[in-house]
């Protein structure tokens, strides 16, 4: 018999959120919650997936965790389902709090819900969905990683991810407007403009840490001559960590606030910044929770927005970026939204030396930050970095063919790749498409 890996997992992480949550639990309580979720919130999907899975292990090579841990079977997609959901089902929910902590750690920090494995399983079993069910159970049990829970609290209390107060939000926009007016005197960031064509929405961290991204978009909107606006009320933030913590109720509330802001402003569409998980939330999960098959208002991700601007020649390129660039395909907009050809069109339009990384498009490796894993905070940085050695190898291969700039059109990917870049000493400059587009576009003198 082959040895089932016996190597110890990376050092046990003590997460206050999970530890304290588990300390309050009993096996009976866990069983009650598990069975309630299974009975009232799951149905044919869970049942059919679990009963159809033939235990063939063919999903293994889909997962970057598995590939990065020398093919340790505990990190294979089905291996993680075995350690979590199968265990829960086998014991009819009678899991002791100690084991439940392990289950929570796997569900929250060892799967990015990237759905790559759904493309590798011959039955198309959606393991990300199964892991989300486990997270839902953990959320209801109150054992969520502390940082992630804090973010979910922020969503609940402020309708944004970063505890930003309403006046701080408006201040930031006006500050960026003033800054940008030094470059383009007539530039405006129109707040609360009813009847505009576009509502532009961003994720909470943009006003908090990366206000220059709002500046860049404002320049783009103004140069392209678009009729746009941003809401001055809660609902401006399109991000959603509640979706990943398992707090579907809060996910619903924040998505409703977002869609309602757009409806109140009577815009034709929502354009969103370069973020992947936010796209998943408005286009896939949040809208469905609220009962919308597709988003109630057309959603245009930044990639598609740039694509349209360049295609319609509303923005022209003065001089292409000439360093070697490679492009990371974020799961949520590529496997989640099919934007891979559009992103290539844009990248080729703004840069002269594009180098593909392999695998790419739908088959690209996840950044290992997605699925809320990066929001589980610093305790899990090594989990992310060690869990994605394969990404470093993939990037290194692109680098050896001349790429020096890595474009990642997603916030989570950006931060996750930054850690990988640093840890493995890859030396990439990591940029958003918007960074380069702003740099190379034709601007009025």
């Amino acid at each position: 018999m082959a040895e089932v890996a016996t190597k110890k997992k990376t050092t046990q992480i003590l997460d206050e959120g999970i530890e304290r949550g588990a300390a309050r639990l009993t096996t009976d309580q866990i069983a009650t919650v598990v069975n309630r979720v299974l009975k009232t919130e799951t149905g044919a999907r869970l049942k059919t997936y679990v009963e159809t899975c033939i235990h063939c292990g063919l999903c293994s090579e889909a997962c970057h965790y598995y590939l990065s841990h020398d093919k340790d079977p505990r990190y294979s997609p089905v291996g993680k389902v075995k350690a979590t959901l199968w265990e829960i089902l086998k014991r009819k929910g009678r899991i002791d709090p100690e084991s439940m902590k392990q289950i929570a750690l796997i569900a929250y920090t060892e799967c990015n819900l990237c759905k790559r494995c759904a493309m590798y399983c011959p039955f198309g079993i959606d393991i990300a969905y199964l892991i989300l069910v486990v997270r839902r159970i953990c959320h209801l049990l109150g054992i969520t990683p502390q940082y992630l829970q804090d973010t979910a609290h922020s969503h609940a209390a402020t309708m944004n991810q970063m505890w930003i107060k309403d006046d701080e939000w408006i201040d930031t926009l006006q500050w960026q407007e003033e800054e940008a007016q030094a470059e383009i005197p007539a530039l405006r960031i129109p707040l609360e403009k009813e009847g505009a064509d576009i509502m532009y929405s961003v994720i909470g961290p943009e006003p908090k840490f990366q206000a220059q991204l709002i500046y860049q978009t404002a320049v783009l909107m103004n140069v392209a001559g678009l009729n746009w606006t941003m809401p001055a009320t809660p609902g401006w933030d399109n991000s959603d960590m509640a979706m990943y913590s398992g707090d579907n109720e809060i996910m619903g509330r924040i998505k409703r606030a977002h869609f309602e802001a757009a409806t109140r402003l009577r815009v034709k569409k929502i354009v969103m910044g370069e973020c992947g998980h936010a796209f998943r939330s408005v286009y896939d999960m949040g809208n469905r929770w609220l009962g919308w098959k597709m988003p109630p208002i057309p959603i245009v991700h930044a990639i598609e927005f740039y694509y349209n601007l360049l295609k319609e020649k509303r923005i022209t390129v003065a001089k292409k970026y000439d360093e070697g660039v490679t492009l990371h395909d974020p799961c949520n907009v590529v496997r989640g939204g099919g934007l891979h050809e559009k992103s290539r069109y844009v990248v080729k339009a703004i840069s002269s030396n594009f180098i593909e990384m392999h695998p790419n498009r739908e088959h690209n490796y996840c950044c290992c930050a997605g699925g809320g894993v990066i929001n589980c905070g610093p305790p899990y940085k090594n989990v992310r970095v060690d869990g994605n050695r394969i990404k470093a190898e993939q990037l290194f291969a692109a680098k050896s063919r001349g790429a020096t700039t890595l474009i990642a059109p997603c916030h989570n990917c950006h931060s996750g790749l930054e850690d990988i870049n640093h840890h493995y000493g890859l030396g990439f400059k990591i940029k958003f498409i918007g960074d380069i587009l702003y740099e190379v576009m034709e601007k009025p003198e």
Partner: protein
Amino acid sequence: MHDLYNFVSGPLVWVAFAVFFFGCLYRLIRMLALVNQKEKFIFSYMSFKYSLRSILHWSIPFATENMRQHPVMTIVTFAFHFCLIITPLFLLAHVILWDEAWHFSWGHLPEGLTDIMTLVVVFGCFFFLIRRLRLPEVQFVTSASDYIILGIVAAPFITGFLAYHQWFNYPFFMILHIISGEIMLITIPFTRLAHMVLAPFTRAYMGSEFGGVRHARDW
């Protein structure tokens, strides 16, 4: 011996086929009823075009990335599944039995060929067994039931092969062949072998989600 033979080749055949058909039907209806009851939204995402697109890609050898990454597995599993379904349907001895019982007949394959196809199925099961024992990612998710399922599938083919060649004790292996075939039919709807009826649906749903909502390939 004769009584036993008459029983397993008479009433028990009826039982086996009935359980197989109604069992499969039950699995399908139960799944669809559950969707209807709890996840009705799934129906609204189903797309005929994208379901077919996905099923087609996964039905053609080497048409998917994962199949190309596992060439040996791909060849074995396609050969295995093909022979598994085709052999019993077009085996001369089976066709004759149908003809005798119902005066209803269809074409059959040369006996030399079905003999080889039987071995392909047995070899396939053996290959899956070795995979389970040797590959850590398969072994990790293997439980006793997986071996039992393999045994259930292999048994009718092994015993059928022995009976056909009349090696060892013919009547004994004939009876064993009939019983094991009946066991296989009966267990299909109630074990993971039900993937036979469920797989097209899981595939179709993922195909519809990827094609219709995600605008991405799922192969």
